């Protein structure tokens, strides 16, 4: 019983520390990437606004398009 409890406490502590580090690292990464201009996250906010079927996607899902083309070729 004691062994389990000890294991439990260690697992809890280290996982929490690990996740906190991850989270803060991630915040840093987000803002750095945007500052350097490698990524623009805020453009995804448009997803809710331009949501007509006729609106151009922010990024096309290529997997779908490839599949479609294959189907066309078959038929």
């Amino acid at each position, binding site marked *: *019983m004691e062994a*389990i409890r000890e294991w439990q406490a260690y*697992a*809890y502590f280290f*996982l929490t520390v690990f996740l906190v580090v991850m989270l803060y690292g991630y915040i840093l990464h987000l803002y750095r990437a945007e500052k350097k201009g490698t*990524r623009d*996250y805020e453009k995804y906010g448009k997803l809710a606004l331009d949501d007509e079927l006729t609106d151009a996607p922010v*990024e096309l899902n290529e997997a779908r398009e490839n599949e479609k083309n294959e189907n066309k070729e078959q038929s």
Partner: protein
Amino acid sequence: MFHWLEQRPFFFAVGVFLVIAFAGLIEIVPDFAQASRPIAGKQPYTLLQLAGRHVYIKDSCNACHSQLIRPFKSETDRYGPYSVSGEYAYDRPFLWGSKRTGPDLHRVGEYRTTDWHENHMWEPTSVVPGSIMPAYKHMFTQNADLETAYAEALTVKKVFNVPYDKPGFTKLGSWEEAKKQALEDAKKIAAEMKNQDVKDAVARGEIPEIVALIAYLNGLH
């Protein structure tokens, strides 16, 4: 990293699942064995008590009554010694409740009698003026389901090794034996009651819900 996940629904789902499952694993699993050990001398419910417990559940008594005395002086003064984990070892499901619209019942068997319960369930304000509890008159005419209670007792005996029929523990026996015992227990309770219909029903070999419920409540220590 997370952005990568947002474009890959499968890995996204896996990620979410890992993060939410983590808490349950750490919190719940390790204490399971510890918390399921009964305190010394704790007895599994008799058949009649178990049938009464089903009545308690059917009418959701736990919507207004807790069965958990917290370790404060104001609670132990009012309801008796505070609850400990091992007392609940045979409670499937637990009936701690989450709201005290009425008082706690964990040790109600210590300070209420058959007679009191009979009056109270028939007309709560007759014993507690100002009570807002509903009357449960239908319990005096409907019969408790002894067979389902027996099925449950047998199930927990077989599947979870609840110590029915072990030396020094509650006797369950075969369905016929158990039914006979329950009826005897019911007769003792009916003898202390005054409702003639209930007395007649028990004499006929039936067990009204109220009798089973009182057996259960009297057994709460």
